[in-house]
């Protein structure tokens, strides 16, 4: 009986195993399993619309191709959609080290507030500012690769439910990263997103088609199959025209796709412009040394099919220690095989640098970003300022105000260069909690306050038009706070957060100011551009960092605030690297005496050695004589 049962269990076990294996085999898609060839397969493929139907040029209406339907037959779209670029809204995903947030900007209300679905300390969740996926996409879609919340219409309210039907979803735009075509136009994609042409955006940017019209102008009941009513000619409905020459005689299209995303694709969302330096002019700026050496971004920032990009910082939770600076340049000690020297990475000598530096500083502290100056530099980034998109303001004073390099002590205890934002926003305070107010709610009040002095002074209007924030006098802040309190009496104490402070009205309606945790700057580490070794901090000696005026310790970090009288103040770098204000000064002072110390130590060692050697030989002489005497 027992033997019979055992046989049955064994057979059942085998059945489950083979069934499981067959399911797994079915899931692995054609393009996801390599055959060992290093060649990138040529992609001459059929295009599919969002319903999964093959697109033919004579279709009416002709629909944009869906990346999901077109790529999914060979690549596991579901698995890819869990990747780093698409999974921000998944609460189960480890957010990792603080990264660049999205920054909600509104010049009229002087709002610049870090927003992210990732649970980084210091950022606000989009919902807190009324940014449902629809509105989030409207604000930041320009530099998003699709997927994630851009497909998540279910999280939206009824006010925009119909708009998703009109615009479609912005599926993962595979071409945004993997296209090798020179005509891949992400700025064009951003334009389509601004027109709410979500389902058309990827096709319009691909270079094989031209989009027209705007879903934004269409009514809620617009249907892509039926178009607009014949008597309604107010606006051009969204549509697409394929470039017929791109289709072969079988109706297939060639896509120039790269397995490794080209640098140019990464740059669209990951560029930084330093507007304080002479290198602000493009022709005078140097590239990252790794890229100059012929490497690509994705050589280090790798991913597998799951698209979990390696961010490349030490301690990253992805078993990618060998893809950090140390991993390539000095090797991963925990690896049983040598890992240093990847891509020909030179092993640094670090001559004369005591090992404690490697415990207290990240590699990037000395090697990355611009050479630090007495004052931090104002910068722009792609995601914060929409660099590379059409119609952006190119002047220097455009919100948000980011400053860099700021040397911040990280959780790991190491000091690393950061980009930094001073949050500025209106909020309601309830006890210790601060709830930011959507700029849309404050805008009318701010406009009223600004308009009040328009007849005498139009500076603020000019500033707003230039993308700058207005100057807020204490009277203006008081006025807005007072109105907010009267208009929304049940929501908490109206507060203006800026420059590290919280401004509130006291019981006598006087404006008060106190330091606030909500006003503390949000910063995120950066690693690029990496300078050549001969331009790294310390190359001229200890004084690069341990001088009483060295920017690493004593630089001025610009504090951005629209409050009149406090504008563009600064804080010392020591406030960010948490070393206190006295210790770095005393330590730097001690370096004044270092040359003398060296001389003293050298003389002392010479004397001690001379005495020791003299008496050693005296002793030897004595031993030799004694031995000779005994003979």
């Amino acid at each position, binding site marked *: 009986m027992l033997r019979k049962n055992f046989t049955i269990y064994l057979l059942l076990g085998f059945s489950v195993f083979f069934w499981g294996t067959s399911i797994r085999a079915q899931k692995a898609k054609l393009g996801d399993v390599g055959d060992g060839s290093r060649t990138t397969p040529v992609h001459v493929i059929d295009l599919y619309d969002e319903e999964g139907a093959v697109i033919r040029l004579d279709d009416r209406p002709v629909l944009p191709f869906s990346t999901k339907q077109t790529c999914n037959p060979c690549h596991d779209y579901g698995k890819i959609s869990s990747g780093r670029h698409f999974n921000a809204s998944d609460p189960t995903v480890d957010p990792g080290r603080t990264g660049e947030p999205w920054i909600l900007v509104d010049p009229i209300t002087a709002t610049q507030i870090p927003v992210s679905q990732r649970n980084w300390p210091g950022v606000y969740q989009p919902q807190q500012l009324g940014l449902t996926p629809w509105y989030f996409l409207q604000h930041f879609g320009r530099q998003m690769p699709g997927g994630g919340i851009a497909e998540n219409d279910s999280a939206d309210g009824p006010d925009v439910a119909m708009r998703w039907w009109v615009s479609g979803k912005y599926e993962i735009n595979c071409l945004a990263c993997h296209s090798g075509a020179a005509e891949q136009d992400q700025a064009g994609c951003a334009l389509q997103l601004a027109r709410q042409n979500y389902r058309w955006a990827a096709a319009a940017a691909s270079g094989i088609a031209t989009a027209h019209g705007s879903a934004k102008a269409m009514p809620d009941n617009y249907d892509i199959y039926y178009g607009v009513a014949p008597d309604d000619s107010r606006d051009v409905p969204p549509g697409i025209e394929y470039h017929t020459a791109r289709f072969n005689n079988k109706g297939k299209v060639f896509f120039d796709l790269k397995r490794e995303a080209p640098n140019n694709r990464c740059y669209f969302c990951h560029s930084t412009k330093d507007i304080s330096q002479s290198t602000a002019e493009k022709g005078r700026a140097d590239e990252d040394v790794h890229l100059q050496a012929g490497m690509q971004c994705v050589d280090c920032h790798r991913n597998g099919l799951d698209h979990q990009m390696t961010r490349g910082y030490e301690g990253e939770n992805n078993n990618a220690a060998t893809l950090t600076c140390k991993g390539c340049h*000095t090797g991963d000690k925990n690896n049983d095989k040598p890992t240093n020297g990847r891509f020909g990475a030179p092993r*640094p*000598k*670090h*001559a*004369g*640098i*005591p*090992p*404690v530096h*490697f*415990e207290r500083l990240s590699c990037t502290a000395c090697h990355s970003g611009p050479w630090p100056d007495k004052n931090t530099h104002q910068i722009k980034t792609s995601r914060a300022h929409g660099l590379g998109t059409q119609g952006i303001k190119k002047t220097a004073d455009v919100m948000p105000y980011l400053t860099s390099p700021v040397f911040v002590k990280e959780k790991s205890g190491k000091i690393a260069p950061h980009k930094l934002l001073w949050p500025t926003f209106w909020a309601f305070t309830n006890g210790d909690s601060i709830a930011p107010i959507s700029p849309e709610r404050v805008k009318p009040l701010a406009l009223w306050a600004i308009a009040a002095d328009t007849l005498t002074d139009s500076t603020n209007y000019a500033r707003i038009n230039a993308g700058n924030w207005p100057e807020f006098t204490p009277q203006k802040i008081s006025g807005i706070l007072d109105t907010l309190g009267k208009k929304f009496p049940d929501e908490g104490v109206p507060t203006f957060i800026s420059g590290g402070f919280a401004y509130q009205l006291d019981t006598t309606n006087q404006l008060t100011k106190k330091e606030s945790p909500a006003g503390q700057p949000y910063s995120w580490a950066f690693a690029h551009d990496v300078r050549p070794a001969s331009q790294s901090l310390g190359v001229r000696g200890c004084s690069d960092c341990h001088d009483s005026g060295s920017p690493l310790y004593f630089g001025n970090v610009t504090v951005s605030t629209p409050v009149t009288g406090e504008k563009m103040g600064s804080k010392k770098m020591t406030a960010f690297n948490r070393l206190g204000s006295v*210790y770095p000064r*005393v*330590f730097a002072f*001690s370096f004044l005496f*270092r040359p*003398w*110390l*060296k001389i*003293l*130590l*050298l*003389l*002392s*060692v010479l*004397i*001690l*050695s001379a*005495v*020791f050697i*003299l*008496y050693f030989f*005296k*002793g030897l002489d*004595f031993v030799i004589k*004694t031995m000779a005497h005994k003979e």
Partner: protein
Amino acid sequence: MFRIVSIIGFLIVLVWIIRGFAGRSENTLAIKRWLRRQKQTVFNRGEEITSLNYLRSFFYLLAVLAVLVLAFTGFVPVIILGKHPSGFLLILHVTAVPFLAVSLALLSLFYAQRNRFSQADLSFWGGHEKEKTGRGNTTRIIILKKICFWLLIGLSIPLISSILLSMFTIYGTGGQSFLLHLHGYTALLFVIVAMIYAYFSIIVSKD
């Protein structure tokens, strides 16, 4: 590793010294006598007051103080926190370094001749090694003190050189790490030998 070695090293020496003192009623007197002798040395009591004697006393006191400061600032973070010295302790440590270096160099000049090994020391060690009581014991301890002196002079060379070399752009990360270890271990030996030297000095003053 260094933390464990340091703890073990200090424990062994302390236990040895305590055992040496344990159960002997004359020890309190010996320590008092030793302290008095230190005072005499420092303030030149009983010696002809010359500028050289002043210098000798001054640098003796300076060396003792510097060793105490350096041992405290160097080993307390290692033993208690398991970390390298840093912050204000490091600044204090570095500040005391030149005082010890200069003092040691000058003390080596002052005391080298006094601590040389003589024919009598050699004959004693050869012939009366087993005589461990009375006069013979004192002579033996004096010889051990001389050995300690030369050990202190010998150890101070790598102790200072290691930190001096690390201040020049000669050695890379590996070399720097080696120099730091060398500094740590020679410092440990230096302090241990200094403790033993002090112990012998007390014992000698007892006899």
